[in-house]
C-alpha cells in the first residue's frame, strides 16, 4: 500500500487548489492531470496493483507541484503588474 505516496499526492493536490491553480489555465491543466492520476492510482490500489498505483501517484504529485508553481508565477506577475500600474497612475496624477 503506497500510503506515503498517496498522502503526498493528496496533499500536493490540495496545496494546488489552495493557491488557486484552478484559476490559471496552465496550472489547472496540471492540477486536472494530478486529480486524474490520483483517481487512477486509487483504482490500482483497489485492484491490488500497487506498483502501478505508485507510478501514478508519483506523476500526480509531480503535476500537483507544477500546478502550485504555475499558480505562483501568475500571482507574482500579477503583483508586479499591479505595482507598475500604481507607478503609472502616480505619474499621471502628478502631471
Amino acid at each position, binding site marked *: 500500500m503506497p500510503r506515503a505516496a498517496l498522502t503526498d499526492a493528496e496533499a500536493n493536490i490540495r*496545496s494546488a487548489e489552495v493557491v488557486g491553480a484552478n484559476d490559471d489555465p496552465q496550472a489547472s491543466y496540471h492540477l486536472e492531470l494530478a486529480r486524474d492520476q490520483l483517481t487512477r492510482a486509487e483504482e490500482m490500489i483497489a485492484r491490488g496493483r500497487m506498483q502501478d498505483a505508485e*507510478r501514478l501517484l*508519483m506523476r500526480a*504529485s509531480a503535476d500537483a507541484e507544477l500546478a502550485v508553481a504555475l499558480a505562483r508565477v501568475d500571482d507574482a506577475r500579477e503583483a508586479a503588474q499591479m505595482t507598475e500600474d*500604481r507607478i503609472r497612475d502616480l505619474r499621471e496624477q*502628478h502631471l
Partner: protein
Amino acid sequence: MIRTWMTANALLALLVGGCGAQGISQELADARRVMETARASDAAELEPDMLHVAQRTLDRAEAAEDGSPVEADLAYVADRQARLAMANANTERAMQQMERAQTEYREELERVALDRGRTVEEQGEILEAFRERLLAVRAELDERGEDLDQRTEELREREEELASRVNELMAERAARAAAEERAEAAMRELQRYAPVRQEADRTIVTLTGEVLFESGRAELRGTAARRLDAVVAVAESRPGTIRIEGHTDSRGSSLANHRLSLARARAVRDYLVNRGIAAQRIDVIGRGEDMPLTTNDTPEGRANNRRVEISFENAPQPLQQQPVRRQLQQQQRRR
C-alpha cells in the same frame, strides 16, 4: 503545503520491470524537448539546482530501456521537474520585477512629494509676487483716485464758477433788458413832449425854445422841468455821450445868437447834471442861427428854429446784427 517529491533514486528503487527493446517513449521525447527549453531559459540562471535535478532524472530515464515504463515515468517526472524549474525561475523573475517596481514606486512617491513641496514653494513665490503687484496696483489706483478726486474737486469748482458766471450773465441780461425797457419807456415818455428822430449813430430829441426859456433869455422856465425830467430819464437809461445844441432863429446878431444858444445849451446841461447825469458825458454847443430847420421868414419857421436839440449816442450794435445799409454808412463816415 507542498510535500517534497521523491528523488529520482527513490523512484528508481520502486520501479521494477522492463520491456523489450522499443523506440523511446513519448514521455522521453517530450522530456528532452522541455529540458532543452529549460536550459535556455532563466531557469539556468535562477534555478540551477532544480534544473540539475531534472537533468539527473532525465539521465536516468535515458539510461532505462527504451520504451519501458521506467523510462516513461522517469521522463514524465523529468519533464515536470524541468517545467517546475522554469516556473520557479519565472516566479523569481516576477518577484525581482515586483521588487524593482516597488523601489521605483517608493522613489516616485519621494519625487512627487519633493515636487509638490517645490510646487507649493513656487506657488508661494508666485503668490507673493502677485501680492506685491496687487499692492503696487492698489497704490497706483489710490494715487489716481486722489488725482481724480482733486480733478473732480477742480471741476466742481469750475462748474460753480461757470454757474455763478451764468447767473451773473443772466442777471446782466435781465438788467440789460430791464434797462432797455426803462430806456424805451423813458423815450416813449419823452416823445410825448418832443419829437424824436433817429440818425445813424444818435437819437435826437428836439425841444422847442419857448417851452424851455423865456424869449431871449437862458433861464429855464418852470414848465421845462417836466420835459427835462423826461430827458434825464432817457439819459439815465442809456449810456454814451449826450450832446446839447442850442439853436436860435436869425433875428438879432449872429454873435448874440451864438451866445444865447450856447447859454441855453449850458442851462439844459446844468439841469441834467443837477439831476445826476455825469457832466463829462455832456457836450454843449451853441449853433446860433447857423443850422435852421426851416425858414426864418415866418413866425412859425422862426419858432421852429428856436430850439434845443439833445442827442443821445446810440449803443453800438454788433456788426452782424446791423443792417447792411447801416454798416455801409458807418464805413463811409469813417473815410
